[in-house]
C-alpha cells in the first residue's frame, strides 16, 4: 500500500510519499486557500500510482476558521447566571499600556448564550436539578435562532456530567452537532473548559464538510488527520473532536524532528523552524513536549498540544531604526508581497537582504535558480540606513543578523533555560526555509555543540505526519490530597480512562497488544495553582518533588501535595515507513560536490567560501566551513571552524566550534 503525508501550508501544499515498490518521492504544489481540498486532491492524484493508499493529513481548516472567524453559528449553554463567563474570560488585558484596548469578541455572541437553572457543587452533588420545561423552551429558542452547532459547559460537569448528558439527549431532535465540555476536556477551570468546548463546536461543522469532501475525493481509501498533540486520528474522530486538529502543521514538524533525530541517534533536540514571518522552536527531551496551556486568537485551548513557542522573527522580518536610535528587526514582516528588497519589489531591508548582502545566499541556486535575486537593488538601501545608524554598511548587515539571532536566542531560552534545561545538552535541529542560514550562529550563542539539518528540511511537517503515532489523550480532574490516597486507589481511578483509550484505539484498527497506555498525574503543592505532569509510577510523589526542583529550583518534601488531574495518553504505533540509506562516499573528500566559490563575510572579514551541492554529498562526506550548502528548498551556512558530516540517512550534522 502506498502512504502519503500531506501538509497544507500558507503557500505550498507539501507531499511526501512511499510507493508500493519502496521508492520515496516528494512533491509540492501551490495551496488553494479558497478550497484547500483542491490542492490536496490534485497532489494525491499526481503522486499516487496504485489503487490502494493511505493519506495522513495536517490541515489548517480548523485554525483558519477561528482566525478568520468563519466557523459555525454556535450556541453556548451553561448554568443560569454564568452566560457571560466566556466574554469576561480572566478579566485581564493582554496589552498593559494600550488605553484603547479591546479584547477579541467571543466566538459566541450574547444572543446565542443561554443559561439553565441547575447546579452541581464542588463535590459533584446535584444541588439544583434541571427543569424539563426550561429545556423545552431552550430547544425552541435554539431552533428560532437557527444555531448551527451547540457547546454545553456546566460548572463542575467533569465531577458529575449528568446535566450535560441530559441536555444532549433533549437536543437530539435538533439534529445539530453538540459538544459537551466533560467529553472535550474533563478538567476544572470553567472558562478554559468552556472556551475549548466552544472552539470545538465552532470548527467541527466546517471540518466535517472538508473531511467528507476529501473522503469522497480519495474514493474509499484511508484518511487520517494529524492532531496538535503529535498523533494522528481517524477522519471520523477528527470530525467530532476538531479542536484537537488546530495547529497540526507545526506539530508535524516536531514529530518529524523527533522521529528523524531518533533514527540518527539524537534524542535530545531543540527544533528551530525559521520561516518567512516567524520562527517556531520546541524542546524534545526523549519525548515530544506537550503543553496544556495553548491559546488561539486569544482564546484558551486546553487540550494537549505539542509545546511550540513562536516569535515574530523570520527571513522577511523588517529592520529599522526606532525613534530612540536602537536597531530593531521585526516583528513586522515584508511577507510575500512586497517581500524583501532582493525579491525585486520591497523597499525595506529584511533579514534575507542582510544575508544576501553578506554573500550568504547564492542567487544562482536560490529555489533551484527559479527565483531571481536582485543583489544590485540592495546597495542604495543599505547605504541610506547605515548612514542614519552611523555604521558601515557591513556593520549594519551583520548587526541586523545579530539582532535577529538575539530574538531567536530569547525564544529558545524561554523553552529551555526558563524550564530548567541546559541547551548545551541538546542538538539544534534546523528546518524550514531560512533556518540553515542562522542555525550555526544561533548554536554558538547558546553554546549548543551540534546542528542537525535533516534531508528535505523544507517538507519536514509532511514527513512528520507519515511518522506520527495514532494518539488519543484523556484527562479527568480528581483533586485529591496525596496523603489521603495511594497508588492502588489512584490506579482504580485510571480504569475508565484506560478503557476509553483501548476502545478508541481498537476502533482505529490497532490490535489490543499493540496499544501503549501512558499514565500521568498533574500534581502540585497544596495551594499552588499550576501543575506539573508526573508519570504515574509507584514513586510518583518522589518524582513530583524531583521535577519541581528541576523546573523551579526547589522542592519541599514537608509540604502537602495534591493530585489535580489524571491523564492517559493512548498510543498505537502503526507500521512506520523506513527511510532508505544513502550510498557510502568513497572518501570524505567532496570535490565532486563543489559547484562554485564566492566571497562571504564572516565576523567582518571576507572569506573565500565554497558552494556545495547537497544532493551530491554521500554518507561520510565531510564539509569544512566556511561553506554554503545549497539544495532546492534551503541554504545552509557553515561559518569558519564548523565541520559538517553526512550520516547514512543523508542528514547533515554540523559540529559547531563552541568556545
Amino acid at each position, binding site marked *: 500500500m502506498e502512504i502519503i503525508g500531506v501538509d497544507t501550508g500558507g503557500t505550498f501544499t507539501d507531499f511526501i510519499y512511499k510507493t508500493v515498490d519502496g521508492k520515496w518521492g516528494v512533491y509540492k504544489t501551490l495551496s488553494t486557500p479558497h478550497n484547500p481540498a483542491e490542492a490536496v486532491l490534485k497532489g494525491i492524484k499526481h503522486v499516487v500510482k496504485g489503487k490502494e493508499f493511505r493519506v495522513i493529513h495536517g490541515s489548517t481548516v480548523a485554525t483558519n476558521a477561528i482566525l478568520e472567524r468563519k466557523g459555525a453559528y454556535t450556541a453556548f449553554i451553561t448554568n443560569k*447566571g454564568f452566560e457571560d463567563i466566556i*466574554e469576561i474570560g480572566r*478579566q485581564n488585558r493582554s496589552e498593559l499600556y494600550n488605553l*484603547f484596548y479591546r479584547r477579541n469578541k467571543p466566538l459566541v455572541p450574547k444572543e446565542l448564550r443561554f443559561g439553565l437553572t441547575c447546579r452541581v457543587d464542588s463535590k459533584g452533588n446535584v444541588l439544583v436539578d434541571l427543569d424539563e420545561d426550561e429545556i423545552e423552551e431552550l430547544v425552541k429558542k435554539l431552533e428560532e435562532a437557527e444555531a448551527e452547532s451547540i457547546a454545553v459547559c456546566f*460548572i463542575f460537569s467533569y465531577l458529575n456530567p449528568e446535566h450535560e448528558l441530559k441536555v444532549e439527549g433533549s437536543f437530539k431532535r435538533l439534529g445539530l452537532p453538540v459538544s459537551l465540555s466533560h467529553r472535550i476536556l474533563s478538567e476544572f477551570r*470553567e472558562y478554559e473548559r468552556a472556551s475549548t468546548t466552544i472552539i470545538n463546536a465552532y470548527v467541527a461543522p466546517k471540518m466535517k464538510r472538508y473531511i467528507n469532501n476529501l473522503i469522497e475525493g480519495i474514493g474509499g481509501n484511508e484518511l487520517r488527520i494529524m492532531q496538535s498533540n503529535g498523533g494522528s486520528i481517524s477522519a471520523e474522530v477528527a470530525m467530532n473532536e476538531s479542536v484537537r486538529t488546530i495547529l497540526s502543521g507545526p506539530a508535524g514538524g516536531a514529530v518529524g524532528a523527533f522521529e528523524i533525530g531518533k533514527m540518527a541517534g539524537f534524542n535530545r533536540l531543540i527544533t528551530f523552524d525559521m520561516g518567512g514571518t516567524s520562527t517556531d522552536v520546541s524542546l524534545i527531551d526523549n519525548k515530544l513536549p506537550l503543553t496544556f496551556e495553548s491559546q488561539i486568537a486569544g482564546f484558551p485551548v486546553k487540550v494537549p498540544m505539542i509545546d511550540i513557542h513562536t516569535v515574530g522573527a523570520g527571513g522577511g522580518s523588517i529592520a529599522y531604526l526606532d525613534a530612540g*536610535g536602537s536597531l530593531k528587526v521585526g516583528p513586522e514582516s515584508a511577507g510575500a508581497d512586497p517581500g524583501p528588497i532582493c525579491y525585486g519589489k520591497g523597499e525595506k531591508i529584511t533579514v534575507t537582504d542582510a544575508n544576501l548582502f553578506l554573500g550568504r545566499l547564492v542567487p544562482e541556486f536560490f529555489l533551484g535558480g527559479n527565483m531571481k535575486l536582485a543583489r544590485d537593488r540592495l546597495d542604495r538601501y543599505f547605504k541610506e540606513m547605515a548612514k542614519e545608524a552611523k555604521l558601515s554598511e557591513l*556593520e549594519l548587515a551583520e548587526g541586523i543578523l545579530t539582532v535577529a539571532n538575539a530574538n531567536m536566542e530569547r525564544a529558545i531560552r524561554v523553552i529551555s533555560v526558563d524550564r530548567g534545561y541546559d541547551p548545551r545538552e541538546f542538538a539544534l535541529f534546523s528546518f524550514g526555509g531560512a533556518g540553515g542560514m542562522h542555525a550555526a550562529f544561533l548554536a554558538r550563542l547558546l553554546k549548543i555543540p551540534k546542528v542537525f539539518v535533516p534531508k528535505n528540511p523544507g517538507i519536514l511537517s509532511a514527513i512528520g505526519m507519515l511518522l506520527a503515532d495514532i494518539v488519543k489523550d484523556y484527562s479527568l480532574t480528581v483533586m485529591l490530597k496525596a496523603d489521603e490516597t495511594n497508588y492502588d486507589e489512584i490506579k482504580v481511578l485510571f480504569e475508565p480512562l484506560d478503557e476509553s483509550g483501548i476502545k478508541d484505539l481498537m476502533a482505529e484498527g490497532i490490535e489490543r497488544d499493540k496499544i501503549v497506555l501512558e499514565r500521568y498525574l498533574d500534581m502540585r503543592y497544596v495551594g499552588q495553582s*499550576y501543575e506539573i505532569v508526573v508519570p504515574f509510577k509507584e514513586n510518583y510523589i518522589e518524582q513530583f518533588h524531583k521535577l519541581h526542583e528541576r523546573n523551579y*529550583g526547589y522542592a519541599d518534601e514537608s509540604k502537602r501535595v495534591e493530585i489535580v488531574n489524571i491523564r492517559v495518553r493512548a498510543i498505537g504505533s502503526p507500521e512506520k515507513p523506513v527511510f532508505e540509506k544513502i550510498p557510502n562516499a568513497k572518501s570524505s573528500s567532496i570535490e565532486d560536490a563543489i559547484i562554485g566559490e564566492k566571497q562571504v563575510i564572516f565576523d567582518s572579514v571576507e572569506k573565500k567560501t565554497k558552494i556545495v551541492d547537497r544532493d551530491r554529498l554521500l554518507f561520510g562526506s565531510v564539509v569544512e566551513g566556511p561553506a554554503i550548502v545549497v539544495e532546492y528548498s534551503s541554504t545552509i551556512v557553515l561559518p569558519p571552524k564548523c565541520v559538517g558530516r553526512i550520516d547514512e540517512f543523508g542528514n547533515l550534522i554540523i559540529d559547531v566550534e563552541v568556545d
Partner: protein
Amino acid sequence: MKVNPILLEVFKNKFSSVSEEMGVSLNRTAFSPNIKERRDFSCAIFDENGDIVAQAAHIPVHLGSMPMSVKEAIRGFKLKEGDMVILNDPFKGGTHLPDITIVAGVFVEGSEKPVFYVANRAHHADVGGMSSGSMPLSNSIFQEGIIIPPLKLVEGGKINEPLLKLLLNNVRTPYEREGDFKAQIMANITGIKRMKEIIEKYSLDTVRFYAKELMNYSERIMRKTIGDIEDGVYTFEDYLDDDGVSRQNIKIHLDLTIKGNEAVLDFSKSDDQVDGSVNAVYAITLSAVLYVFRSLVGEDIPTNMGCLRPIKVKTRKGSIVDAKFPAAVAGGNVETSQRVVDVILGALSFAVPERIPAASQGTMNNVAIGGIDPRSGEPFAYYETLGGGMGANPYGHGESAIHSHMTNTLNTPIEALEYSYPFMVRGYSIRYGSGGIGKFCGGDGLIREIELLGDAEVTVLSERRRLSPYGLKGGENGRQGRNVIISGSDEKFMPSKFTARLKRGDILRIETPGGGGYFKPKN
C-alpha cells in the same frame, strides 16, 4: 564607549528577558492563588544606584514604587553576596503592607558592592492586621498588618529563621506566606544568575554602559512623546467617594504643565490626608504618572529611570497623594492610584484629546473574606479584585468587565474558588447598561455574587459607588458601582467601604462601575 544601535537592541532584549525570567520563576513557584492565578507581582533589575534598568510588564502600580523600595533597602545595608532584604513599610519605599518586596545584590568577582540589584514585589493575601486579607478599613497603619522595615531575610545564603518566624507568627495563613517568600527568593536567585551570565559574556563595563544607555534611550523617546504635546497648563480635578470613616469628596487636583519636552505635574492643591485608608504614599502617585506617560509612548520601550527624567511630580507632604506616617494606606495603592490616573488623563484630554479615553471604572473593587472553613476547620483568607468598564475613546466603545489602568490581575476561576473556599458563586455576569452612553459607549461593569457556606468576615474596599466615572466630549458618565448584602429576602445596600460579619447563607453581590462614554449619543 560609543553607543552601538545593535548592542543597544541586544541589551534591551537581555535585560527585559532577565526580568521576565524572574517573573516566570515567581509565578510558577508561588503558593497563594493571589500571586499565581492572579499574577499580582512585578520583577525588575536596578543599577548600582538603585535606578531601575528594566521591569517586566506585570502590574503598573508597582512601576514607580519599586525603585524607591530598592533605594531604601540599599540605604541602610551593606549588602553582601547571598544577602536579601525584605520590606513592606510604605513610608520607607513600600506602597501598602500586603506588597512585600525582596531585594538582592548582583556581585561579580572582586566587587565589594553590588554592581546591579534585582528585586521583586508580590501582593500577599494576608499580612495580619485587623481584618483578613489585610485590606482593612483602618485609620492608622498599625491596624493594617505587620510593618516590615528593610531587614535581611537572607544572610550569606541562609534564611534568617528568627525573622521568618516573627513574620509568620503575625499573619493568618503562615504556610502560604512561607511558600510565597521562598518563591520570591528563588525569583531573585534566577535574576542574579542571569545577570552574572550576561556580565561574564560582555564584561561589567559594557553591561553597565548599556544599562545607562537604555535609560537615555527611554528618555529620548519619552521626551519626543512629551514634545509632541502642545505647551500649556492643563488643570483637572476629580474626587474619591469617601475615606470609609467620615470624609467625603476627597479632592485630587492636578496642574499639568507641558513645556517643550518636559512635563511638570503639580498635585499640591489636593486635599489633606484622611483618617481612612485611602491615603497614597508618594511612590504610588509616581507610579500612576509613569503609567500614564508610558501609555502615551507608542513604542515598546523599556520601563526604566529614563522615562521619568523629563517628568517632575510635585506633591505636598501630608496630602492624600503624599501621605505621611502613620497614615492608613491600605487602599491608597489600589483605589487612590486609579483616581490619580483619572485626573492625569482628564488633564491630558485637553492637551491631546485624540489619545485619551473617558474614565474607566476607577476602582479595583477589593473584596476580602476570611473565617474558618467549616469543611476543614482551618482558617482561610480570600482576596480578589474585580474588573469593570473601560472608558470609551474617540474611535470606539470601551471594553467591558475587565481590569483597567493600574492593575491587570486575573480573576479566580469559580471552580477553583469553590474548591478552596467555603463559597458558592451564584452568578458572574456582565452588568449590561452600566457603561456611559455616547456615540461610543463606555464598557459595562460586572456582577459577582458569592454565597457564604459558613460565617465569615467580609471587607469591601471600593470606589465610584457615589461619584461616577466621567464621560468626555458629551458622552455620559458610567454608572456607579453597588455593594449589596442579601440575607434571605433582605437586600442591604452597603457603602463603598465596609466590613461586616456575614452569616452562612448570606450573599455578597458586587456590581462594578461602567466606563464613561465618548461624544454625544446620536438620537
